[in-house]
């Protein structure tokens, strides 16, 4: 079942088309990557989903219902441009933002307590935002985004500005939220940073969706049946079923990228190799999302 369905959405600003007839859907309970280079239209789409702006054409369905203003209490949005009231205390700020999302005061207070205890930042509550380091501010902002336990969490460039330790901490929190049933949208132009986390993705380029679906399927669709073999011995392939794309040799150790042809299987190749050389390593070369993106984009512009 999909939590969000985007149906033919277009958005035009005075001088340019930000989104051009974009459609895809996001399954419930997954981590979804909204990927694309800067200026592709990701933020425009997010602002339509969070109802900051409206679409010129198309509809969006949230849990099967046409998007309504009261749906925003079920969404949490961490914008790319982070910011909090500098002169406000951490505790008051979290309370205020949670109340704006419709939480009662007592409920919000309780949840804030839960978060600061888990992240061990209780002593921050009385501090003003401007007295915190940038990494600390980001943590507070992340808490503010998810405090009302939204079923859809939208994170725009979530890891920019985090040091590796905090980035891992946030990653763990995101996975925990997903396991508790939330759906998470990652929007980023750094595709390698979210590849391992995402179950599904949509690729956007120049206002258009170029690709979407489960990461597994996309990778399967784009895999090239190429294997990397490392071993000892003289490798000389004569069979027409296997095509050597690349081969290096160094002190009797070779490394070769071999593509399967004529419907041969990996096992056929392995059997063929074992008879001739000593195999140390045999891995399938899977394209990264970045590779797929580049291939797809060059295809569409070719």
């Amino acid at each position, binding site marked *: 079942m999909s939590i969000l369905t985007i149906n033919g959405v277009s958005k035009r600003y005075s001088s340019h088309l930000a989104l051009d007839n974009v459609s895809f859907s996001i399954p419930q309970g997954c981590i979804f990557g909204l990927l694309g280079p800067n200026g592709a239209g990701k933020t425009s789409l997010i602002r339509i989903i969070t109802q900051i702006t409206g679409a010129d054409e198309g509809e969006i369905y949230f849990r099967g219902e046409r998007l309504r203003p009261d749906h925003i209490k079920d969404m949490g*949005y961490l914008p790319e441009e982070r910011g909090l009231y500098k002169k406000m205390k951490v505790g008051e700020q979290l309370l205020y933002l949670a109340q704006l999302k419709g939480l009662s005061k007592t409920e919000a207070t309780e949840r804030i307590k839960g978060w600061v205890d888990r992240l061990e930042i209780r002593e921050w509550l009385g501090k003003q935002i401007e007295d915190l380091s940038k990494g600390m501010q980001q943590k507070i902002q992340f808490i503010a985004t998810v405090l009302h336990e939204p079923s859809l969490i939208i994170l725009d460039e979530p890891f920019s500005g985090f040091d590796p330790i905090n980035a891992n901490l946030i990653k763990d929190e995101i996975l925990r939220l997903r396991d508790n049933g939330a759906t998470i949208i990652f929007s980023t132009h750094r595709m390698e940073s979210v590849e391992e986390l995402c179950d599904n993705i949509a690729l956007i380029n120049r206002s258009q969706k170029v690709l979407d679906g489960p990461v597994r399927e996309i990778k399967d669709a784009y895999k090239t049946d190429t294997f990397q073999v490392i071993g000892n011995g003289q490798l000389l392939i004569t069979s027409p079923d296997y095509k050597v794309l690349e081969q290096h040799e160094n002190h009797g150790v070779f490394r070769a990228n071999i593509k399967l042809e004529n419907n041969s299987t990996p096992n056929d190749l392995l059997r063929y190799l074992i008879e001739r050389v000593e195999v140390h390593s045999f891995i399938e070369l899977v394209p990264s999302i970045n590779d797929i993106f580049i291939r797809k984009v060059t295809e569409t512009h070719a």
Partner: protein
Amino acid sequence: MHKIWLIIQREYLTRVRKKSFIIMTLLTPLLLAAFMILPGLLITMSGDEETVMVLDESGLFTGKLENKEGMKFVPLAGSLEQAKEVYQETDNTALLYIPKISIDDPQGITLYGKKNTSLQTQVRLENILEKEIENQRFIASGLDRETLDKIEANIKLSTINLSDEGEKDNNAIITSAAGVVAAVIIYFFIFLYGVQIMRGVIEEKTSRIVEVIISSVKPFQLMMGKIIGIAAVGLTQFLLWIVLSFVAVTAVSAAFGVDAAPSPMEHYEAGKIAAEGGSTDAEAAAEKNELANTIQDVKQSFENLPLLLILGCFLFYFLGGYLLYGSLFGAIGAAVDNETDTQQFMMPITIPLVISFIMSYSVVLKNPDGAVAFWMSIIPFTSPIVMMVRVPFGVPAWELALSMGLLVLGFIFTTWIAARIYRVGILMYGKKINYKELSKWLFYRV
């Protein structure tokens, strides 16, 4: 509605808890109290200690100089040189030397002092001496003071308005003061708190929190919440000022035993009257009577002012003007990235305000029913200030209704414009905005 209430609360509480707010709120009434009390206090203090030594060689004033109102006379005998020596050894204010003169040619009277004698002391002494010589001249010419008092006439004009509603006492000064005070308060309130709205919007924009907030609330709610919250801050400060000023003035005057708010001029006049009186009780009584009459006049003028109407109008134009301009200030804040860029957009807002302020003094006060006053009190951008100046003079009901109706329409109109600029502007960064760009924003579909 619940969310806008949360926003109002935040805007209100963060400002009211600021140190600068607390200091301003406490300090202003104290300064005001000091300003009102000090002049009176200083005069009384310096007036207490005047002792004048008198060397009267003419004998004209012997027994005629009475101690009164902080001025004490000590008669001396002997030569001028001796008197000077005696005077030097004392702390007394001055030495008055009256040579052998006749009442026909009273020249050569000299006042010696250690420091510069104050003008006030000099004038008082001159008055006393003049009075005495006049008295003696009357006696010499066969008139006495009582006869003269009967001859002396004292006229005080009462001004009365003849209008459709019947006769009304009217004191032009009181009437204009009531209106001008109200107008000045409105003028400063719009400026002080309008700029606060603008700063608040810029702060939200530069700290980039605005996108988080408007993913929870509508931009219009955020803007209105801010405007209303800041209005509440202003009203709070205003009320506290009134209450605290009253408390401070009462407390200070009780502590120092000074009449609250005696103007230095009044005090001087009182001194002069007291100095002039003296020869007969009847005259003093007459003077007192006159003073009482003036006070009665002032009181009556206040009572005759339509106080409820003025207060009602004040509240209406106070809020109406603030809301009209406040939303525009908010729109400016949304259109720019930082405060230095606000200049070009501030101009068109400040100009009508400043013009109505200046015109209130120069034209409207002199001719509260003229064409300029009429039009400026009808147009929403100038009416909050100009109409307030006119109201105490009496304004036809239809003009008031028209002006108020237009102000409400004007407020709705500026809020509409501001909301449209606001919703586009708060998410727009790093773009130099001009008026052409702004006008395009009005018709964006968001």
